């Protein structure tokens, strides 16, 4: 074999397994030995080069912008996948929470102030100490909420609760709110809320949803009393219920 033939073999087969003839030639030809050694040096050096080089972040930013501009990226359509009750309720609550909290509290207080004296006026006139009568009845009122047909049987407030238990679930600010709300709710079933029966139906449906949510929050808090998030949601739910009841009563008053 000559040098040129060896090179043809290298070109066709690479530097791997050489034929016996090629090996014999290499053993006797210093120039070809040097040549093959150089090629092996190059191959070894090439393998030491980094296979991957991290590109700058700006490439992806620019690429993504281009993909969006061309409409190649399609944002996923919201699919109503069955999610956990907690996730869905959490999502439902979030947008309104902060915006309505203050207004709802004010409304609830206003309703309380305007309705209670009117309901108890005869008692107040007859006997001053009787004004205090509804106070001890607070647990009963709380317990009476669940008796509403709109609430699920599993709703926490539907179970008779001791005052201490109620306190554990709803600290003092929400106790009065809960009391007020439940009392206000007592009037709702008998009230024609709106001239439009569809609106009426929607309002009642909203109330049912809120009651269910409150019940679930309370249930959750029973199991995880330290869950601050659940407690916060419960407060918010009370506020929203106050808001809703105020709207319902306003509507009922206007129509009746």
């Amino acid at each position, binding site marked *: 074999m000559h*040098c*040129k033939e060896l*090179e043809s073999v*290298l*070109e*066709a*087969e*690479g*530097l*791997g397994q050489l034929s016996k003839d090629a090996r014999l030639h290499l053993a006797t030809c210093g*120039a*070809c030995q*040097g*040549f093959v*050694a*150089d*090629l092996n*040096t*190059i*191959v070894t*050096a*090439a*393998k*030491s*080069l*980094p*296979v*991957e*080089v*991290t*590109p*700058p*972040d*700006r*490439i*992806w*930013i*620019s*690429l*993504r912008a*281009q*993909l969006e501009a*061309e409409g*190649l*990226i*399609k*944002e*996923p359509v919201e699919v109503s996948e069955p999610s956990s009750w907690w996730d869905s309720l959490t999502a439902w609550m979030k947008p309104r929470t902060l915006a309505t909290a203050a207004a709802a509290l004010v409304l609830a207080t206003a309703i309380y102030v305007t309705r209670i004296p009117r309901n108890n006026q005869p008692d107040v006139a007859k006997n001053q100490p009787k004004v205090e009568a509804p106070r001890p009845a607070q647990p009963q009122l709380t317990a009476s909420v669940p008796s509403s047909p709109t609430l699920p049987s599993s709703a926490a407030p539907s179970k008779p609760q001791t005052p201490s238990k109620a306190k554990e679930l709803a600290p003092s600010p929400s106790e009065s709110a809960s009391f007020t709300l439940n009392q206000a709710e007592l009037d709702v079933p008998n009230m024609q809320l709106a001239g439009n029966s569809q609106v009426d139906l929607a309002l009642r449906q909203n109330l049912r949803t809120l009651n269910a949510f409150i019940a679930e929050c309370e249930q959750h808090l029973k199991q995880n009393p330290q869950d601050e998030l659940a407690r916060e949601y419960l407060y918010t739910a009370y506020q929203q219920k106050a808001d809703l009841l105020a709207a319902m009563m306003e509507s009922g008053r206007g129509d009746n």
Partner: protein
Amino acid sequence: MCASSVIPGTTLGATRRIRISSGAATGQLARQRPAQPVAWTEAEAIRLAQAGNAAAFEFLYQLHGRRVYALCLRMVGNPADAEDLMQEAFLQLFRKIGTFRGESAFSTWLHRMTVNVVLMRLRKKSLPTDSLEETLEPDAENSGPKRDVGAPDLRLSGAVDRVNLERSIEKLPPGYRTVFVLHDVQGYEHNEIADIMGCSVGNSKSQLHKARTRLRELLQEEIRQQAREERKAAKTPSGSLD
């Protein structure tokens, strides 16, 4: 010659589940990245990208971007052009991803697109690297191993470092450079290179051998140049500037 590293898109690369975390992201990119790390197989990501899922596009980009960037960088030799070419390659890839049917490995498909983009650019722009091809002796490819009579010992052993190798690779003609980078640097097999380059396996082998031979000459030239500079420096009197 066997590939020494795992290549994304080969059987292993196509089926393994890869987790990409966005934790290191910063700035605008961080805002655009999904909040949670995603763990998909390449096949899942391709399917989602075909449906226009942004996270899947990014997943594929993160999975292959570093190799593609390395290829572009070695092909054009400067980061600005490499960035431009990489973006163009991925843009083409994502435009056509709907047509990907899995007949070849995804990485092969991507590299084919990248190589085409790079070669097209080199042809269009006639980057300075092309001109060097003309300076080489036309019969160099057909002659036997070069022997420089009377020249100093030009054995490359111990004289090739990363810097002069990278510099010499940049001087290779684009075709040789592509095959050399794909095979000897990135570890692709000849059948994969043939698929990427649209040539026969024999052609790929032949091109690789010629690339190595040419590279040897370029490296020898580098060594000679260095030797000349050293001699020049040695002749210059040390106090001549005073």
